[in-house]
Structures are given as C-alpha cells and as structure tokens.
C-alpha cells in the first residue's frame, strides 16, 4: 500500500507511455518520456512559484505587522493569478537605444538555465528527471551560465543602472560560486560520486532506528550546510545579499529596463533558482527524500522532499523579513576572508572524519578542526572599532 503511493507518479508515467511502448522505436519513447518529465517539472515548480510568491508576501506582512494580500480569493490565494494577468497585459517596453536581440534573449536564457538546473535533483524514490553520472557538475555548469544571462540583460538594456546592477550581480555570483562549490566537495568526497541519487543513497541508513545518517548531523556537514545556504542566498540574489537589484540605490539593477512579461520571467527565474539551490541543499545535506525517522518511511518519499524544501524556503523568506541589505564591500570581504577559508576547513574536517573512522571519534575530531579554524578566523577578522573620530572610506 505504502509502496503504491510512493511510486504513484512512476506508475502514472508508465501508464501514459503504455500506448507507444513496445511498438514505437526506442528514441521516440525516450523523447516522449523526457517530454513528460519536463511537463511534470514545469507544472510542479511553476505552481510552487505562484504559491511561494503569495506566501512570501503573506509571511512578510505578518512579520512587518500588516495583512499582506487578502483581497483576491480566499486568504488572497488567487493573487498570483491576478498578478499574472496584470503582467501579461502590460505594455512590453524596449528602450530605443537598447540592443534589441540581446535585450530579448536575456530573460529567455536566464529562465532556461534556471529550469535546466532543476532536472538533476532526485525528488523521490526513482524520481530523478534527468539521470546523469555527473549530476552535481551539471547543476553547477548550468548555473554558471546565469552570469552571462545577467550580463546580457545589463548590457543589452543600454542603461547605467542596468549595467551597474549586472556588474554587482556578476561580481558577487563569481565570488560566492567558489565557497558554494567547495562546500559541496566534502559530500562528493565522502560519497565518492557526483551522482545525486548515490548521494541520497549514502544518507539512507539510521542509527538505532531513529537517528538518520544525514550529512548535516556531522560537524563538517553542518558547517558546510550553513556555508552552502549562505552562498545559495547570494547566488539567488536574495536579501540580505540583494545589492544587484538594490531598489534604493540602482532602481532595479539589471531588470530596470524590463517590463511586463519579460520582468515576470526574471522574477520567475529568481524563484526557480532559489528552488533549485534549496533542492540541491536538501539532496546533499538533508538526506534527500528520506524520512527523518525510520518508521515514518511509509509516508511517500516526494512528500518528505517537498517538506524539507518548504522549510528551507521559509528560512529564505524569514531572512528577508529579518535582515537589512549588506554593502557591496562587506559581501566581498565576507566571501574571500571568511567563507572561502571555512569552506576549505569543511573539506579538511570531512577528511579527518573519514580517516578517524566515521564514528564518534571522527565526529569529535572534525568538530575540533572546525572550531579551531573558526575561532582563529574570528580573532583575525575582528574589526571591532575602538572609540575614535568617525572616518569615511567611501564618501570623502
């Protein structure tokens, strides 16, 4: 019974493919199967996007002591429909001096890369849309093309604000790609595979029937997960790292000259990117689609995946409601002086954990490594100012 619920989507796909399977040539079946996967991915994640966009406004409203959207439909839940219609019927403005082709292609490219990255994440048992040996590598390779899309948006608009926003975005994305990828490395090293399914499989066991072997429960995994999450915040340009589109400084950054549906595409790509990076975080550190306690495994695997994903997304929104925007130089300093050394430390701590036997002893040793480096770094980077006349660095 539990198994049939778990595999219900696989069965549905087999049923949909049954009219052509066995009769049509192999490549046709493959194409049809891929198209079904793509349709399912788009359906699920565009719905999630609509849902999250209204939930974010509700939660932010709650945190800021106001109502949030509550006019359209029950509890304002139909707000995304209204927003979508509004975006569709808005005039599409292209600046006269813009580079028309590049200006048009930028939102297309940014949405395509964001959606491609979703393809390699295992959403449940046997539910990886695109099975590839180097799945993690695929994720980051696709993600790295986002920078080019952002640049195209900034350059194609022929606007100073757009260009400044694009420069800021690329600077911070390149800087944080380093810690992001290096925090993934320990997991890849311990599992010995770049395949997301194998990484999920390596976290499947339970100690004493209730303690899952997720990597986030090891010292190096916990540290790497926090670093990964912060880097993910930066990569998806979310508050407190939203300087690329800081509306109080540079209007809307690289999206300044976009209106109507093209703007909506950028907006969507940002959210899809957020889903993808959170999904990868769940896969790498939070045990993927496995249940937190063994006897809860009867609940279908995809439910667990989306529960974990929603928790991470809530933290994203929570941070947005809590933290103010950081300065550009603060972001850069944080990346190179703190994130990068800590990411390397996670790498070493994972090696220590492995060679001291992956048990309690390894746990303590790797905790010691991380703690020593953390305290040394915090001593070295201590910038507490002594009381002195105020000096201006950037506003002389």
């Amino acid at each position: 019974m539990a198994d049939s619920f778990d595999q219900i989507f696989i069965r549905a796909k087999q049923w949909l493919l049954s009219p052509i399977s066995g009769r049509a040539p192999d490549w046709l079946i493959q194409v049809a199967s891929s198209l079904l996967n793509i349709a399912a991915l788009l359906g699920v994640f565009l719905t999630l996007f609509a849902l999250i966009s209204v939930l974010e406004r509700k939660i932010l409203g709650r945190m800021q002591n106001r109502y949030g959207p509550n006019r359209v439909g029950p509890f304002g839940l139909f707000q995304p429909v209204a927003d979508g219609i509004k975006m569709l019927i808005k005039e599409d403005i292209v600046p006269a001096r813009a580079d028309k082709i590049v200006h048009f292609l930028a939102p297309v490219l940014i949405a395509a890369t964001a959606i491609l990255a979703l393809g390699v994440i295992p959403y449940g048992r046997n539910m990886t849309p695109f099975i590839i040996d180097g799945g993690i590598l695929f994720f980051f390779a696709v993600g790295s093309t986002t920078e080019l899309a952002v640049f195209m948006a900034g350059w194609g608009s022929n606007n100073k604000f757009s260009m400044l926003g694009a420069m800021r975005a690329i600077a911070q994305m390149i800087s944080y790609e380093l810690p992001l990828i290096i925090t993934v490395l320990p997991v890849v090293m311990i599992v010995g595979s770049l395949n997301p399914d194998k990484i999920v499989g390596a976290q499947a066991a339970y100690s004493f029937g209730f303690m899952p072997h997720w990597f986030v429960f090891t010292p190096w995994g916990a540290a790497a997960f926090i670093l990964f999450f912060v880097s993910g915040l930066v990569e998806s340009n979310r508050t407190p790292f939203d300087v690329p589109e800081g509306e109080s400084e540079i209007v809307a950054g690289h999206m300044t000259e976009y209106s109507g549906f093209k703007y909506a595409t950028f907006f969507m790509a940002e959210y899809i990117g957020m889903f993808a990076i959170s999904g990868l975080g769940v896969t790498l550190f939070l045990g993927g689609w496995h249940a937190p306690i063994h006897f809860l495994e009867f609940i279908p695997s995809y439910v667990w995946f989306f529960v974990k994903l929603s928790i991470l997304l809530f933290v994203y929104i929570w941070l947005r409601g809590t933290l103010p925007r950081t300065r550009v130089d603060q972001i850069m300093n944080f990346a190179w002086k703190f994130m990068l050394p800590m990411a390397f430390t996670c790498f070493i701590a994972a090696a220590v954990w492995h060679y001291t036997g992956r048990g309690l002893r390894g746990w303590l040793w790797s905790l010691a490594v991380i703690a020593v480096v953390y305290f040394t770094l915090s001593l070295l980077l201590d910038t507490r100012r002594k009381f002195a006349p105020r000096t201006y660095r950037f506003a002389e």
Partner: protein
Amino acid sequence: MSTVAFAAIAILTLAAALAAATLQKLMHAALSFAVMFVGISGFFFLFGAEFVGLVQIFVYIGAVAVLIVFTILLTRHDVGKVRDFKWSGVFVAVAVFGGLVWAISKTKSLSIVPQQIKPVTVQRIGELLMTNYVWPLLCVGVLLTAALIGALILVMEEKS
C-alpha cells in the same frame, strides 16, 4: 538518430562560429562565440564524454565567455565603427584549414580502427586523477594558486 543530432550540432556550431567572425558588433560576436562553446560541449555529450562536456560549459561559458565580455566592456572601443573586411585573413584561414586537412589525411594512425574502449565515466576520471595523474594534478594546483596570488598582488592597493 545520432547522425541527425551530429548534423544539427555541427550546423549550430559552424553558424555560431561564422557569426562570431562576421558580426559587426563586438559584443554580438562574443556572445555567438559562447553559443559555439555550447555546440562543442554538445559534441562531447554526443560522443559520451559527459565530464569533458560539462567542464566545457563550466570553464568556457561560465568563465572564459564572461571574461571576454568583461574585457570588451572595460576596454575602450568605438561603438559605431564598422569592421572592415580583410582578404588576407581569408587567405590565412584557408591556408590553415588546407594545412590541417592535408596533415590529417596523411596521418597513418587514423586509418586503424580503434579498439572498443571502456566508456569514460566521471568515476574513472576521478580514480585516474587520484592515482596515475596525481603529480600533474598537484602541479596544476600549485600553478593556479601562484596565478591567483599574482593576480592579487597586481591589483593590491599600495598603502601610501
């Protein structure tokens, strides 16, 4: 099937390369250069070399293309200037192409039918890098670190 895919990717790659060579605006040329890199990584995927294909996207689109567009952005160039056509360039290109075709057709090792080799998986590449090729890997690592430190020294502010 794979012949059709090969033809499609080849046309895309060649068209993008031609566009990169002939487009009037420098930025358009740089962006079509990036499209050509996508085509080349498509070839690697088609031939089953997943890892190289992914690294191709990673390095050439994520880093080299961004570097090129930044170089164009940050250096002075005349926006309205029309790139003039030089016949000498065509001559050099034809000469290089002819030379390569001649060299390849003369190569004897190509006529031997290659033996069936094991597919190159990411796993195998990783194992080889950590065993047979660990010294070259370490040397490349040291070289890249030196380059990184050199770049930092170049851009470091001198405190007066």
